């Protein structure tokens, strides 16, 4: 289904049930109306919290609010070409990011990835290993030797 056509219909009928069927959860009008953001996650908690965060930011720019298409099963939508056709932006989390957009150097260390799917570039939010170790050190200052399981 052409996304442009879908956008028009959902922006006029903002009903969650309808949007869920369409694969879109929320659409808002604004100056950046070419922008479509897909939030991809396997986990409903991370998905809903991330969408809330995205919306908090966009609410601060009422004059430039992009349209948002948030989805929990975005792989289908990406594979079907819906988001690429829109020139939209995808925010993918963890394993989902690795699956959708394989990145050689960041196999399992991606916290989040944001990417314009028609382009090869993007932004990776990568796990902060140092920060985790520092906090662990606060709890276990006497731990001198660490074990790690790798595959």
């Amino acid at each position, binding site marked *: 289904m052409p996304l442009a056509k879908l956008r028009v219909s959902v922006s006029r009928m903002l009903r969650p049930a309808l949007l869920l069927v369409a694969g879109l959860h929320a659409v808002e009008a604004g100056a950046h109306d070419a922008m479509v953001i897909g939030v991809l996650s396997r986990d409903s908690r991370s998905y809903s919290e991330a969408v809330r965060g995205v919306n*908090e930011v966009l609410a601060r720019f009422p004059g430039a609010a992009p349209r948002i298409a948030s989805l929990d099963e975005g792989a289908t939508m990406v594979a079907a070409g819906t988001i690429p056709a829109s020139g939209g932006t995808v925010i993918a989390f963890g394993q989902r990011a690795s699956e959708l957009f394989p990145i050689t150097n960041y196999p399992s260390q991606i916290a989040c990835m*944001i990417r314009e799917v028609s382009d090869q570039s993007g*932004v990776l939010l990568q796990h902060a290993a140092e920060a985790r170790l520092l*906090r662990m050190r606060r709890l276990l200052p006497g731990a001198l030797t660490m074990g790690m*399981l790798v595959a």
Partner: protein
Amino acid sequence: MHAVNLRRPLRLRLQLDPLADRIDVLIATYDLRIHSAENAQPILLFSWRNRIPVIGVSEAWSRAGALMSFDWDYADIGRRCGELALRLPEGRGFERPVVESPRRLVHSLNLEAARHFLINIPADVLQGARNRYN
């Protein structure tokens, strides 16, 4: 640092046992092939039997018995992603990949595990925990 290469995950316990006398803490990595729900039980049993704390990869690990686990603040990641999305040039992506770290790191604690491992939790670590399990 001792890294154990798990070529045969089904024999996880046999591969973990030799670590018991060699490490002070076991740190989980973000590799779902290893730190899966299936492997959680033998890893945590090893931890409690040998009094070697596990640092888990998600809140669920603390709930299950890991001394501490880290997680992301997904709302803050969403906010950051929203900011970045607004910065994306019209019709173009970034010229090269940008790599950042999440701004907020959150942690959860298992207080029963702390008692079992005889660990005193610093006040700031305790107060900063998003979840505390007894």
